[in-house]
């Protein structure tokens, strides 16, 4: 049985697709490669690159050691930092756990 669930872009598998649900802006606790500075600018910049709620995206690859994540957004590929990848919520289809 399949069901929809929400995960972050970090948790996506390479090759997996999902629909962006929400981008978490603002300053919050962060791990790994998060350096802070996720103000409105970051959400705006993702939006202007086409990463926005409702958009279907595919994870192309993720570098190991908290490295950047490459996404396929429409016809373009966009590389984002690991911190940002943890702040993009996507809805994916997966096996019911």
């Amino acid at each position, binding site marked *: 049985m399949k069901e929809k669930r929400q995960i972050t872009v970090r948790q996506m598998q390479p090759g997996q697709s999902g629909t962006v649900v929400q981008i978490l802006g603002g300053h919050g606790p962060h791990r790994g490669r998060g*350096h802070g500075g996720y103000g409105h600018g970051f959400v705006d*910049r993702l939006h202007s690159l086409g990463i926005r709620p409702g958009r279907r995206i595919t994870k192309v690859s993720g570098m190991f050691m*908290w490295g*950047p994540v490459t996404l396929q957004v429409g016809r373009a590929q966009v590389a984002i930092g690991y911190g940002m990848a943890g702040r993009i919520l996507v809805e994916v289809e997966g096996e019911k756990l």
Partner: protein
Amino acid sequence: MRWREKSFDFVLPSDVGEDGRPMGLKRILLMGNPNVGKSVFFSRITGVKVIASNYPGTTVGFTKGSMKLGEEEVEVIDVPGTYTLEATSKAEEVASQMLQDGDLVINVADATNLERNLYLTQELLERQIPVIVALNIWDDTKHKGISIDVAKLEERLGVPVLPTVAVTGQGIKELVDRIPEAISPALPQRTRDERWAAVGDIIEHVQTITHHHHTWLERLQDASIKPLTGLPIAAVVLAASFLVIRFIGEGLIGYVLEPLFENLWAPLMMKLSVALGSSGFWHDMLIGNLFDGEIDFFQSMGVLTTGLFIPLGAVLPYILAFYLILGLLEDVGYLPRLAVLLDNLMHRMGLHGYAIIPTMLGLGCCVPAIMATRILESKRERFIAATLISIAIPCAASQAMIIGLVGAEGGQYVAMVYGTLFVVWLTLGLILNRAVRGFSPELLIEIPPYRRPSWRGVLTKLWMRTYGFLREALPIILLAIFAIGILYHLGVFDAIANFTAPVVSGLFGLPEEGVVAIVVGFLRKDVAIGLLAPLSLSAAQLVVGSVVLTMFLPCIAAFVVLARELGIKGLLMAIGIMLAATVVVGGLLNLVL
């Protein structure tokens, strides 16, 4: 920057007629997302050659040119690429400010990525400025399975829309012909979501996408960004680049330039030498010292011997080879992938992966490299990147001389110089990351698709960069050699040499006269490294000398851009770091070797 001096008055109502069409057209702005081909487009309509590459952010300043429109001469400005007018980065800030100074916008859009490109178009349509849209990269739509109804798009947007292929020039004339039809629909100001909704609606009606099979280029694209395949590919690409550059450089020197200088130029100079009486002031200035009655192009130090040989015989071949390979890597679109692969490493140095692009440019020349640090978002990153480049990245001219001089002692010594500089680059980066306040933002870049580079584009760029080297470096090199001759003649260097002996001989283990090279390094690093030749140094001393000369003080051209990009305070800090690093590294190297 000249445009800064202008006042930023909003476009006066008189610039747009009652029907919204342009009046008194004086300044056309080329605007669009990064990496949609604005610069190529700009060259096409103005005839002004500019550097264009396949990665976002090639144009960091702005370029001005002019074109004939009917009888009128109109100014055209190539505005740095921007995704939005909401100024989320420095380039976007510049773009939206320049908008207030223009009379008409040619909105260059990537036809293969219409949805995202139309967002900026929507913003432009809300401004009081006539717009005409160029659907560029039109030739790529077909094999990507994209079909766009241009007439319908034109109707929906309410401004002229024309398909173009800037690289080949297709559609450019038609677009220019319709510039007078550009219009400002002056849509009401909307929110971001409303604009995206409008874009979505348009896309649904004008664009159909048919499934297309992955091409081998797209497969390679994905392989070169996945860690497991990407890192080996990067290693191969970099190693191959290095080998090809050496092969071309050495080939040109060995088979073309050295024979030319030795067999044709040397006999001519020997005749001149005899005519000048084989000694005296003018002989020393023009021909320089003879060794066993022969000219030694590396050591004679005459304006017509060493002065011509360094730029043309030793450095030019490597400049050609380096910029050919760099141009190919740029136009294929490889560099942003390298940025993603190296992002982790670069973050430890307070930078993000994109800093690899200015760094690679620095292997050619420090000046464009330091200017390219503008593609980095924060002041902190720009400072770290520019400082690292000016200290630890040897320019092509220095490298050519290092390979020529140090390489004569054996390849392992050249490897020592490069190895030391790499360690310095890494260590200094780690230190600066801890020492400089602030944080470095994360990577957020668009990865361009691989494109087949056009030979025309690659060769134009190669010519521009080579010509730039000849125009800027050649006079300085000749002047430097001349000045060195005069100062030697007057005995000025002896005084300085005595004064600086403790550092130069005591710390670095170089002969006292080595200071001359260090002083000259401020003018030109290649000449400075050449000055090590007559000192009959041991291999170890050559290694120390090359490293010290590379790290110590930027050459005057680099000095000027550093001051401009970092400000006086930043410049002084960078120079402080530079001096300290040189003393430490030079001293250590002398102890070890």
